[in-house]
């Protein structure tokens, strides 16, 4: 690939390589930051309030159980002949309370990580003094001249606090000042430091009109000035929304989370039934067999808590929050958890060719001289005509000439050269030297130029032109006066690694569609080179929109990225719509995610994060339920040993005593939550693979692993308890 270091690319907005796994994109923060841990511990206790616990039915049942055994404990202490030995009840009660606390801690940890991010953002949201165009004037003044004139300007501006700005206010921001609110640039061009939001230190250009007109409150103008129309009211700014998002203030359960919650509640009810009915069952058994008593209530509660899916119940909200958090660390702000979840479901990606699949602009990749012309001669003329040409294409010709033929830049003035810029009428550009007219441009323009100069257009050059076009490249013909020197081939450069990435997508069942304004011939060539599944050539906003609708009609979920205002309808229609932060306000509002890095390739990572979140949920649910088998083997023999000593045969782990058996099971049940917090926060390992392969692996690890793991763990805890003298 030829995007070398001195690639003459737009040097303000950095071009992006294809990002690696989302994991690498995330800015690393230690999982257990001491400050976050400390506040999470406090929060874990605060969350014990029943009003907050009731939102999580599984853990609420545990809390009620804990409260119940606490009562049993006091009852046993006071009466001296309670449900079981007070020390045993006490130990079980403590373990149960820890189960609740650990689950709360997991959630608080996830929220804490979000809060840390929010605090950073909040710093950017400080109140600043804004210079606002007096309100009465805003509507009838002819904006341009008066504000552009420094002398008039001061008279028309008033200083206000940024929090008092309303939609449609107009503010003036000079170099060194913070932009007081989200808005749209009406006048001016400036470089803006957006690192407070994006974390990207390189400044970006913001200017009126076009797709780079949106500015975000809290970012700083570095040079020049801007006149900005405020587009949001206080409390609704992008920064506010972002803070609300990461803090989880507005966190609503996602549809899939709700469904899983229902399933978990149902399982909890099943286990509630299975354990509660054990009391009459055991009473009947005790009466019938003539020895023993009904099973102690403490053991029933312990059994219940061990059986209900506390592992997933305790970690479910942490997984959701962590999913959002991973998005944010990938520098993507989702407007809802629903959007993150939908990202996992997406099976069609609409990708803009430019910037996503190919590097931003076409680049010169070859000089194809006409017959009788040396390649270096063509390169020389092409370079000459491009020296003053500031378009990316022009600069890439200069670079190619330097790389291939060692041609250095020349001083235009000393040559007496006059630059002839590109116009829509002539459709060519070039230089006029004394006695020479060098031009480069579209074929028909050069044909006209050469003919007018009295020359003829060689047939074999025409053939070259057609060849180049057929390969999906753009031919640029170079002529010196009446002489046609040859063709410069401008080519879209497909990003390195993108083809592999698309192949990966195909393997996990996601179809990639390239969207381009190019003609079908060029589009087909690039599509083939990049390895996309389909393409939409000569795309108009309407065509994009109808394509999305088409796919949705067929049942697909469509994701796309966009930045321009004309992308807004399509963004609004797509299921997952990622707007570029550099894009217009309209685009940002139509999308349900904003990529702060403005890197369209990030869509691929977004899909992965969405999938990873669902997979983590599924894996932990399976694990949680699979754990129950071992717990039955620990508790059932212990619970009924007085009535049916024969059930001791089920004590296959050889646990020391009924007391240690029950305690080992509840302790394991509590600590497995703590043990799995890192997994919940980081998400399980994601590898792109077809569904059956993924499932096979996860069933093996979390299903079979979930069945087996508790056996040795409970045994080890039992041994530890025995060593400590518990009997």
């Amino acid at each position, binding site marked *: 690939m030829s995007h070398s270091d001195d690639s003459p690319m737009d040097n303000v907005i950095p071009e992006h390589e294809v990002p690696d796994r989302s994991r690498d994109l995330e800015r690393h923060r230690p999982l257990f930051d001491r400050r976050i841990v400390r506040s999470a511990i406090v929060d874990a206790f605060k969350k014990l309030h029943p009003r907050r616990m009731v939102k999580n039915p599984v853990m609420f049942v545990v809390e009620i159980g804990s409260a119940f055994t606490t009562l049993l404990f006091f009852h046993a202490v006071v009466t001296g002949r309670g449900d079981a030995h007070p020390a045993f009840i006490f130990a079980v009660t403590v373990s149960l309370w820890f189960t609740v606390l650990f689950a709360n801690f997991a959630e608080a940890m996830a929220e804490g990580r979000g809060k840390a991010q929010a605090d950073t953002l909040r710093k950017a949201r400080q109140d600043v003094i804004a210079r606002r165009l007096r309100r009465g004037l805003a509507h009838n003044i002819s904006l341009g001249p008066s504000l552009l004139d420094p002398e008039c300007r001061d008279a028309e501006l008033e200083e206000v606090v940024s929090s008092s700005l309303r939609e449609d206010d107009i503010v003036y921001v000079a170099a060194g000042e913070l932009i007081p609110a989200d808005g749209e640039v009406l006048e001016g061009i400036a470089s803006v430091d957006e690192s407070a939001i994006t974390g990207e230190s390189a400044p970006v250009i913001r200017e009126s009109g076009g797709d780079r007109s949106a500015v975000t409150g809290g970012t700083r103008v570095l040079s020049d000035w801007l006149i900005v129309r405020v587009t949001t009211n206080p409390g609704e700014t992008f920064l506010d929304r972002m803070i609300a998002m990461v803090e989880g203030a507005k966190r609503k359960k996602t*549809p*899939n989370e709700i469904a*899983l919650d*229902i*399933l978990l509640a*149902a399982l909890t009810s*099943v286990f509630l*039934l*299975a354990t*509660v*009915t*054990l*009391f*009459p*069952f055991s*009473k*009947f*058994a005790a009466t*019938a*067999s003539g020895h023993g008593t009904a099973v102690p209530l403490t053991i029933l509660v312990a059994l219940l808590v061990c*059986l209900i899916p506390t592992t997933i119940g305790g970690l479910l909200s942490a997984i959701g929050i962590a999913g959002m958090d991973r998005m944010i660390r990938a520098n993507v702000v989702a407007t809802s958890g629903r959007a993150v*979840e939908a990202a996992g*479901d997406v*099976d069609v990606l609409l990708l803009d060719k430019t910037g996503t699949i190919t590097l931003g602009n076409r680049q010169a990749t070859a000089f194809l001289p006409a017959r009788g012309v040396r390649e270096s001669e063509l390169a020389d003329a092409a370079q000459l005509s491009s020296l003053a040409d500031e378009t990316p294409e022009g600069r890439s010709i200069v670079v190619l000439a330097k790389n291939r033929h060692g041609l250095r830049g020349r001083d235009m003035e000393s040559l007496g050269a006059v630059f002839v810029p590109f116009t829509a009428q002539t459709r060519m550009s070039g230089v006029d030297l004394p006695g020479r007219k060098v031009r480069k441009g579209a074929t028909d323009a050069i044909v006209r130029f050469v003919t007018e100069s009295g020359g003829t257009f060689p047939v074999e050059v025409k053939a070259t032109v057609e060849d180049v076009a057929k390969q999906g490249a753009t031919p640029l013909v170079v002529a010196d006066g009446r002489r046609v020197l040859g063709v410069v081939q401008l080519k879209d450069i497909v990003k390195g690694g993108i083809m592999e990435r698309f192949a990966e997508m*195909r*393997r*996990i*069942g*996601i179809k990639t569609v390239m969207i381009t304004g190019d003609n079908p011939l060029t589009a087909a060539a690039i599509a083939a080179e990049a390895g996309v599944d389909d393409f939409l050539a000569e795309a108009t906003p309407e065509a994009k929109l109808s394509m999305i609708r088409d796919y949705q009609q*067929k*049942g*697909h979920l469509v994701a796309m990225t966009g930045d321009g205002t004309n992308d807004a309808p399509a963004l609004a229609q797509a299921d997952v719509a990622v707007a570029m932060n550099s894009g217009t306000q309209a685009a940002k509002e139509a999308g349900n995610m904003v990529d702060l890095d403005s890197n369209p390739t990030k869509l691929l990572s977004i899909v992965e994060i*969405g*999938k990873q979140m*669902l*997979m983590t*949920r*599924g*894996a932990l*649910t*399976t694990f949680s*339920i*699979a754990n*129950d*088998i071992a717990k*039955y083997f620990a508790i*059932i023999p212990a619970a*009924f040993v007085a009535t*049916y000593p024969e*059930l001791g*045969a*089920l004590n296959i782990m050889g646990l020391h005593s009924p007391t240690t058996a029950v305690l080992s099971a509840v302790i394991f049940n509590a600590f497995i939550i703590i043990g799995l917090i890192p997994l919940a926060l980081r998400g399980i390992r994601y590898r792109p693979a*077809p*569904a*059956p392969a*993924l*499932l096979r692996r*996860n*069933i093996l690890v*979390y299903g079979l692993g979930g069945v087996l793991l508790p056996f040795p763990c409970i045994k080890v805890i039992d041994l530890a308890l025995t060593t400590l003298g518990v009997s």
Partner: protein
Amino acid sequence: MTANAVVQFLVFLVLLIGLALPLGAYMARVYNGEARMAQRLLSPIEHLFYRIACIRSDEEMPWTKYAANVVVFNVLGAFVVYLLQRTQAALPLNPAHLPNVPPEVSFNTAVSFATNTNWQTYSGETTMSYFTQMLGLGVQNFVSAATGMAVLIAFVRGLVRRRAESLGSFWVDLTRSTLYILLPLSFALAILLVSQGVVQTFSGSATAERLSPTMSNGHGVIEQVLALGPAASQIAIKQLGTNGGGFFNANSAHPFENPTPISNLLQLISILLIPTALCFTFGSMVRDRREGRAILSAMLVVFIPLLVATTVFEQRGNPILRGAGVDDVASAISSGGNMEGKEVRFGITSSALWAVATTAASNGSVNAMHDSFTPLGGLVPMWLIQLGEIIFGGVGSGLYGMLIYAIIAVFIAGLMVGRTPEYLGKKIEAYEIKMASLVILLPAAAVLIGTAVACLVPAGSAPIGNPGSHGFSEILYAFSSGANNNGSAFGGLTASGTFYATAIGLCMWIGRYWVIVPVLAIAGSLARKKVVPVGAGTFPTHTPLFVGLLVGTIALVGALTFIPALALGPIVEHLQLLAR
């Protein structure tokens, strides 16, 4: 396991699947209205019924209307059965002059037959007149089975249809199930059974002189009254419709109900025939036969090991008896093992196969007494019932229960592959999970709560035949059988008292209609959805992996729900037996 048993099982399975394949295809054509031959023959009768009942055969019902019709039809049906029993003394075809049936038994029986359970708190030959048996019980044997099939077909339509509001017409599905499927099959089977010696007559009982007189209550008994009746026709539908209610009290252990090994095999096959065939019907209706085969495979993966387990435990016999010097080793002239409660003419293999088949399907007819099985041999039938009658299960009801489990399995699997789960292209969302949870939760709740109450109240524990763990198994089995609409009895429990008649009556009601309504609700919701196209990210539901996952889900849910209860019943009984 003996070679004889292996051969018997293989012959049975091959015959079963061989017959189910064409039947499944035929049923799919019937429900799609494409069975031309049969239609030419039967469609005049079908449309005559519609005309009499003022039914439009092309009516399309939303799920709510479909469900309402199912419930209303069944309630009315149960009411008719109740009335017939209460007034049978005044009605014809009562040669034995049997009195009216008491109210709680009438209620229990009415619910039992309407819900396709056929739990019998009475003995047929001494309680029900021929009129009641034929017009009450016989009719319900047909229509309760047809109801299950209709609900299944509505559910399958929910999976197949896209953005549709309706699930078809209950009346048409009901009529077609009865007229095109159940009636012809029953007719054929009844003839075959008669050929084997199953009785079919309207005359009263016959009297036979005993070879050796015995004493009973101080009187010498020299002759025996042999109950007769129109049994063959009843038995055909009792097996085909997974009803299971015997004409005689001893059910298919009675020589007039099941006289020969051939009649035994015929009945065994007919117990599982329609549930098996419906798997193929399902595959055919969703236009992917692999889906149907996958579901059937999952059923077999559960069925075969449990069959082997029961057979092995029964053949192993009772360690205490062996300790006492009893020769219970199987040989060419002896079936060996635990022969208590089994018919000598069937032996262990056929009894074990029957016990597993009749509890896998929600049939409930028996040819041996489950109460007398070894503890673990008896655990298997009980657990098969507790799984929710989905391994084959009732006609229709078994498959829709299985598909509900498929939805749960797919939900968890879907999460594990990182996608909102879908089954046959339909997204599984909160509503489906909510309803599916009810389907699994309610029968389990009825079993456990019913058993718990019976343990607590004297009316529950008094009628137990055996004390201790075995007595507990008897109660647990009774409620499992009722709430899951199986209908077989462990025996040993006198269930005709007010408590059991009422409690189990309620359980049967809950286990049937509180499942049918959510099932239809899911069908309605699925029908409205669009279909997600299949891609590499889609988790395929016709592979061995899915079969494994489905079986795992069923086994795990079934085990986790009932292990504690089973531990106090058959498991501890088994351990006690070993310990002695």
